[in-house]
């Protein structure tokens, strides 16, 4: 689906509505809304660029996500513009990281830093080279990690959007994302109560059974429940005591302009706190639900 300026304006309005209606998430909205806006603008900017991934229907049918069928990322992908958009979004949302992001942006802009080479840092299995690269770039490792997380997320979203129409013709019955293999960070109940799982990495959505745990595929009602706040049965969280995981869920059966999943997930952050205090772990850890200690 093509992103237009109207979509970006709608997103801005939805962010403002959430900021006004839910003052307890103001800090999260302030932190992540620049990234949400920049992601939308960047996706609009690069929508002409299409290096489509070839889907193998047989492997897909066997539950193999695209990320395991081949290399999703290519050096030809629009890494430079993605890196600049992410750096801008982080510097606006996280004032503590602004200095680092300014330095990073100038290196990306003048070609001294290749974001494609940088994203491959996340493939490293050892901390030392990562820390050493962060030191070379004069960036705090935690900030570099945040940058890489969003850089990968921007590009994965682009990749997922390019294959959405093709995947709509194929069936997928797994609880992990058919594009990148991540577990969902949110579920949205749409028309007729269908549960659509939302990937926090590539923003792909896919339909999944209402009563089955997406994480461990357990479906005994004795071990699965959902948490809700009295007076608001629209926003809930599916819980599974078999795997001790949870999935925040929002019921939106008749939404004219769909609210971005990341924004919905942020509005449910209070449920994340409540469930994590009860000993549950989110199915997918994202920045907006990793609320406790860094060691969570």
């Amino acid at each position, binding site marked *: 689906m093509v992103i237009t300026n109207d979509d970006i304006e709608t997103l801005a309005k939805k962010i403002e509505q959430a900021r006004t209606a839910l003052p307890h*998430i103001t800090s999260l909205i302030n932190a992540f809304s620049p990234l949400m806006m920049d992601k939308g603008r960047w996706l609009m900017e690069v929508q002409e660029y299409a290096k489509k991934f070839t889907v193998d229907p047989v492997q897909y049918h066997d539950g193999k996500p695209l990320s395991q069928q081949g290399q999703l990322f290519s050096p030809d992908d629009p890494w430079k513009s993605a890196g600049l958009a992410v750096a801008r979004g982080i510097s606006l949302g996280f004032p503590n990281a602004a200095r680092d992001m300014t330095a990073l942006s100038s290196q990306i802009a003048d070609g001294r830093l290749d974001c494609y080479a940088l994203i491959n840092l*996340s493939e490293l299995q050892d*901390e030392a080279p990562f*820390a050493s690269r962060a030191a070379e770039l004069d960036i705090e490792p935690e*900030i570099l990690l945040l940058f890489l997380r969003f850089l990968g997320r921007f590009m994965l979203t682009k990749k997922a959007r390019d294959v959405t129409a093709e995947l709509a013709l194929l069936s997928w019955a797994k609880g992990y994302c058919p594009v990148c293999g991540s577990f969902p960070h949110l579920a949205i109940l749409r028309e007729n*109560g269908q549960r659509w799982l939302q990937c926090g990495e590539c923003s792909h959505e896919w339909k999944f059974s209402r009563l089955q745990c997406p994480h461990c595929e357990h479906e005994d009602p004795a071990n699965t429940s959902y*948490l809700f706040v009295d007076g608001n049965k629209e926003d809930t969280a599916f819980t599974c005591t078999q795997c001790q995981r949870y999935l925040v869920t929002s019921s939106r059966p008749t939404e004219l302009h769909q609210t971005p999943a990341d924004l919905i997930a942020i509005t449910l952050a209070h449920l994340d706190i*409540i469930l994590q205090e009860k000993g549950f772990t989110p199915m997918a850890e994202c920045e907006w639900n990793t609320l406790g200690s860094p060691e969570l």
Partner: protein
Amino acid sequence: MKISRRRFLSMSGAIGSGVALSSLGLDLTALKAHAAELNKTDQVRMAKQSTTICCYCSVGCSLICSTDKMTGKIFNIEGDPDHPINEGSLCAKGAGLFGMTEVNEHRLRKVLYRAPKSNKWEEKDWDWSLKRIARLIKDTRDKDFTTHNEKGELVNRVESIAHYGTSNINNEECWTLSVACRAMGLINIDHQARV
């Protein structure tokens, strides 16, 4: 800021876990206070979801019933989107099933009787009511029972009693009632679902 080995390894493969917000300088006081308030005021509840089949007709639509684990009471009934027959949709009767649970405060819980020519309802117990119904049916049937029609054919019927079924009885109750009516010779039997 120091990145732990565990945290570093968890991010392998471009998709890893999130960076803790507390380490990025975000103030989560208001959010944590909101969550604490909900917990403190016992507003946080757990519910169980179970599936069942709609009782009303032979189509066999599936339902998801949500039950509050604290009160043990159903607070929502909806169509099951994963069931191949109804795919989450329900007819008007199925969609109204929740209104038949005890949550509906308008639902009649006692027998109300209005005497002939009276304009007042009186509460009656089931013993009295069933005996009264049985008495009237027996008297009417004994008076009007017809064994043969005008052509002399054997009919064994009573035409002065009609039975009209409610929309809120299920398939099996409908069958039992129709058998009971026919055993008494009733021929005027109808049901709300037909109209």
